[in-house]
């Protein structure tokens, strides 16, 4: 088994599919509910398969922070400029293969959006660094 991080971006990444262009507040309330319920169903399905680890959503606000030097306060840069890549949240799964990780990401990406059509949303799939294997 290997862990994968599925990253959802607010901004950044390849160009959006036309289905994903409308902002969420332009959908109907029912479409928003359907979308959230689908996300919950994906997590439940992965849980049932024994593959779900964790998922979290992030508040869009954020800043870059670094060391400010001896005895000085931290230096911040932000809020993020409009052009910067912005992560919206993630799901962590523990699966048998990279193919299976991609399949799970594709399932998540098929979440319904405006007019109930699949969003075709890009998700970044990143394998975790694992422990060294004891079986050569």
């Amino acid at each position, binding site marked *: 088994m290997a862990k994968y991080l599925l990253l959802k971006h607010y901004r950044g990444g390849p160009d959006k599919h036309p289905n994903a262009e409308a902002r*969420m*507040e*332009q*959908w*109907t*309330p029912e*479409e*928003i*509910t359907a979308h*959230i*319920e689908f996300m*919950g169903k994906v997590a439940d399905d992965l849980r049932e398969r024994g593959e779900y680890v964790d998922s979290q*959503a992030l*508040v*869009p*606000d954020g800043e870059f922070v670094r060391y400010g030097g001896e005895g000085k306060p931290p230096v911040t840069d932000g809020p993020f400029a409009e052009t910067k890549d912005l992560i919206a949240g993630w799901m962590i799964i523990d699966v048998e293969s990279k193919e299976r990780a991609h399949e799970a990401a594709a399932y998540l990406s098929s979440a319904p959006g405006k007019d109930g059509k699949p969003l075709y949303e890009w998700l970044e799939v990143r394998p975790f660094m694992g422990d060294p294997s004891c079986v050569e």
Partner: protein
Amino acid sequence: MISAHLLRDLTPQILGVLVRRGADFVAAEDAVQEALVEAVRGWREGAPDDPKGWLVTVAWRKFLDARRSASARALREVAVTREPPAGPAEHTDDTLLLLSRCCHPALTPASAIALTLRAVGGLTTAQIARAFLVPEATMAQRISRAKRTLAGQRFEEPGDARSVLRVLYLMFDQGFAGAGGKSRAAGDTDLAAEAIRLTRQLAASAPQDPEIVGLLALMLLHHARRAARFDASGDLVPLAAQDRSRWDTATIAEGVDLLQHALARDRLGEYQAQAAIAALHDDAASAEETDWPQILEWYDELAGIVAGNPVVALNRAVAVGHVDGPLAGLHLVEKLPADLPRRDAVAAYLHERAGDRAQAARLYTAAAEAATSMAEHAHLLKQAARLNQSGPSAPA
């Protein structure tokens, strides 16, 4: 087998006995934890006839052992001056004394809540960790750090009830906010229920303080609505849209009764005033029947007690919006700091009532972007979506 409930009830009692015998709070808490570990190991075949007496004996011995290894001189002092008299176990109620140790103002609220849950609530570190969605080792460290902070503090007898009430209030709020969200699935610890249990215990030990009773009433009057706060799909349901038949009428009745007794003492405080507002909401058979003029009067009282509190001012603006019209409410909101949480949501609500649906939609969108919980984010987004869909003149 030992009952988890029995241990949970006994934990603060044992701690109270040790503290009253003169053990300092931090050392006593360590000793009680060690005694509990020994009980879990030693009671597999069945609990002793007098579990409390057993635990007091073992905890006291642990405390003395720790003292002995720490300092021989301290041991002599303890042994000479603090050896307890023989006789039956004491029955004094130490709840306020113990809570005031755990809720010492030198601690951050998060640390105080964790320590309170363990030392007085009798929860295990693992249970507390699950409630906060952090690893057990992290929670164990948080509790140790809190105890190290306390080790250097001076204590007053019997301690400050105000800081205790604040910590219990925050504990309840945290549990209430999380209920129904994903934290519901995360653990078996209901922080709101724990806060009510502890406040109930505190109210029983100090019934003369109307603010303690007021806080208990406030918690119950909110807790009574918990089944209606989320719909079947987990969405947050605002007060005005809740199915009031799902409110817990027995809990409301208890809260109202407690509040009336507290108010009769004629020493008003912030928790009694907030409980009065909650009671007026609970009392309305429908949102339309809400007695807003009386709610506004209570907000005026509350604003007098906690002068300059912007959160109270924001909630008061909603009441003003109902009594004097949405524009009067908006006028007040505009004077509040722009970064005040929920300011945009309140402004959106008042703009919609004033008929400006476009501005309301914009503000709900902004409020959704600043929301700090998924349930709130989705709720605010749907408010914006509803207004964007139905056009400028359609009814809500």
